[in-house]
């Protein structure tokens, strides 16, 4: 299941709903992404430096998340999955994203969860703009995220060569 929303979410309640009543589940792996404080360590107090706003592409976001979710179910024996991604203005410490994969087997839950966040990071159309002392700054994509996502396609690449 996927959800794109402004509001915060309750991790415990979401997981309870996800796994409740399905006693075939042996484990659930969850990743929760938080807004990290990018402000210099010497800046403290109520400055609220480090807040950010997440813009997204309504319609395409849901479409890409659904696609990633389907792909995970095709690759691993999963009982349940959940992707929640927030948009709008967020402050340091706020939850941004939750991905969860529940399976009979621990390893499938871990692998699928990591796949979901790795792919979401490079495929889902979200953009972060940070509030800095020098003004708004669009966050640049990271090569490490591309590399993390690419590891999931290396087997297919090898297979088609």
């Amino acid at each position, binding site marked *: 299941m996927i959800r794109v929303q402004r509001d915060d979410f309750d991790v415990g309640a979401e997981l309870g709903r996800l796994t409740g009543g399905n006693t075939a589940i042996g484990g659930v792996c969850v990743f929760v992404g938080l807004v990290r404080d990018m402000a210099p360590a010497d800046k403290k107090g109520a400055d609220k430096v480090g807040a950010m706003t*997440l813009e997204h592409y309504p319609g395409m976001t849901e479409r*890409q998340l659904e696609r990633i979710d389907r792909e995970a179910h095709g690759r691993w024996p999963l009982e349940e999955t959940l992707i929640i991604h927030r948009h709008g203005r967020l402050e340091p410490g706020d939850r941004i*994203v939750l991905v969860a994969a529940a399976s009979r087997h621990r390893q499938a839950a871990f692998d699928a969860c990591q796949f979901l966040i790795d792919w979401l990071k490079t*495929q*889902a159309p*979200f*953009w972060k703009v940070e509030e800095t002392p020098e003004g708004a700054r669009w966050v640049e*994509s990271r090569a490490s995220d591309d590399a993390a996502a690419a590891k999931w396609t290396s087997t297919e690449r090898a297979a088609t060569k």
Partner: protein
Amino acid sequence: MKVLYFAWLREKAGRAEEQVAPPGTVTTVQALIDWIRERGGGPADALGDMAAVRVAVNQEYAMLDHPVKPGDEVAFFPPVTGG
């Protein structure tokens, strides 16, 4: 044809979206980009360096040789930074 701009491309383009009616010879993403560049203004600036731009046609990622036609939704945006 509907063209969308996101993140800093939106700021550079000076608009979030626009309805465009390019000539019938514009049948690919690349041709659409060339047409927007010739037209000039903010959108031309936004698409100045395609190395940092991703494209989606009808909400699916697309390459520069992907076909476009009247009624399509074409979006330009930087590499994504969600999660």
